[in-house]
């Protein structure tokens, strides 16, 4: 690895629960990654713009409001429209198991549910990057 992994941690939608997003952001940073956190209430358009501008390797999104089926795929589609296909896209939050197959089909690479260890997220990112860095 020649440079640190760059990650955008994002909160799409109106949900204000950011404890998980912030814990993950810190854990990734402590694991040597460069982390940008968007703050609350980001539209899919804003997230995609930030991902491109910051040239990140990973977009990690968190939703606890139940809007994941709508907002996660929207981010994937917008990234694809902009021709971005080599960014690892992951999501987390209160996400019912039933919804996971749909989200994976929509192009989210992995979904992490409550109780996940930050170590597992770090491992997953390191092993599944789509770019050579």
């Amino acid at each position, binding site marked *: 690895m020649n440079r640190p992994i760059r990650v955008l941690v994002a909160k799409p939608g109106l949900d*204000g629960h950011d404890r998980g997003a912030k814990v993950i952001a810190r854990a990734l940073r402590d694991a040597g990654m460069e982390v940008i956190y968007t703050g609350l209430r980001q539209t899919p358009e804003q997230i995609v713009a930030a991902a491109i501008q910051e040239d990140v390797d990973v977009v990690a999104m968190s939703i606890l409001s139940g809007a994941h089926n709508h907002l996660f795929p929207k981010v994937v589609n917008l990234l694809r429209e902009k021709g971005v296909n080599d960014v690892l896209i992951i999501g987390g939050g209160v996400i019912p198991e039933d919804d996971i197959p749909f989200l994976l089909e929509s192009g989210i690479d992995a979904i992490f549910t409550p109780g996940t260890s930050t170590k597992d997220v770090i491992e997953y990112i390191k092993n599944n990057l789509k770019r050579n860095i």
Partner: protein
Amino acid sequence: MFDDKKIEEIKAATDRWEKETVSKVISKFPERKEKFVTNSNLEVKRLYTPEDIKDLDYESDLGYPGEYPYTRGVQPTMYRGKLWTMRQYAGFGTAEESNKRYKYLLEQGQTGLSVAFDLPTQIGYDSDHPLAEGEVGKVGVAIDSLKDMEVLFDGIPLDKVSTSMTINAPAAILLAMYIAVAEKQGVSKDKLRGTIQNDILKEYIARGTYIFPPQPSMRLITNIFEYCSKEVPHWNTISISGYHIREAGCTAVQEVAFTLANGIAYVEAAIKAGLDIDEFAPRLSFFFNAHNNLFEEVAKFRAARRLWAKIMKERFKAKDPKSMQLKFHTQTAGSTLTAQQPDNNIIRVTIQALAAVLGGTQSLHTNSRDEALALPTEESVRIALRTQQILAYESGVADTIDPLAGSYYVESLTNKIEEEALKYIQKIDELGGATKAIEKGYIQREIQDAAYKYQMEVESLDRIVVGVNKFQVEEEEKKEILKVDRTVEFSQKEKLAQLRKERNNDEVQRTLKVLKEKAETDENLMPYILDAVKAYATLGEICDVLREVFGEYQQSVIL
């Protein structure tokens, strides 16, 4: 409570016990951990004796229920007179669906309503706003106008129930809608009982549903204080909330400290606006979390009560005893619920609810076992309510007041929590008060540090979470969960289009114009908001007018 000589004797005897009895055992069987700590990292000793509370003065530090400093409770007879209000927070989908759930809960013996609004409502967007996409009806009920509110309370007599509404930035508008519905039912404002959360500071800190910047937000809050003191005298005008701050990851000590610091900021704002302390302070109420560490939680509630009483009396010179009484609602801790083996959550909730009752709460929401997965099903909500009823009617814990008083451990913890919380409050005072401390990111950073530390402790197994990092099982079949689909959003949009066609749009424009003009002055906005609401102006339209005048809050991202 003991004389010095007796304390000396006890101290000597305790030392002897450590040397003669304990040391022998410990050399062969070491204790489970080198150091035991509470959730707030307060060290827990092996044994507590009278020496640990040797300076406690019964009369001045504990006193009697219903009397200053209210350590033992705010009511003279507590649950012997009337049990706490069992109030389950509920709301999802459309007003029709939520109305049905409220009627179900009332039939099941619930004694008060607690309304959950969806995020667009909480942030002042109508259901047809682009930012509302995918969020309508998800975490609560969607309310766009007085029309929805009429449906929400259809068939529920507002002079008979007390209603708590978890609404903050647009609290004035939802309160106005509630008043308007009551009027249509023939219930006058002075008969209304309930609470609006109306606590914007903790939105900036932890919960995230802010709209306007701090200054105009504080103005709306003091407008409500003033209006209600005259027009809606039995309404609790604010619920100063530690709940969400704790959910964001802080400790019990920080929960007390940051909540009371916010309380101080509201009191100061109201005084600055020219209100008399004893006019509005009796209607201030609080909202705390109940976590798993039973004794620390009980001590937390007692410490908060005593500390607030002192602040009101000594710092703000309140005269009315009601101004000094910290009345509070409690909700069990959502963040302690696990998605793994969700039935275990019933037991967690029981312990937490017990803490709230032993701590003297005025009302209680018990979480449902499936809330780490989704909104709760009707069956799960019933078990949660039954948990409260079993505590109330079977356990006997409600039969005497403040039963843990006098416990060397609990009294010592109560003192310690008060002391540590006071240190934080002094620090916040030095930073210029809660609003300044939030703007500087101090409070947010303290919470984040605690949250991160907690997560690392769980991952290193210093902290055991049953079913998550120990005692795991292969999860069995999927549980039934409640889902809200997007049809709610589409039907809400249709209803809005209909409303915009049918209402008297000239009257809407007129009332909104007046509101805008008044927002630019120092006048109390409540009457003008009420006029707009009655003309069926939507929540989004009213908030837009205020956004134009007040601007919007920009979050400073702290990591």
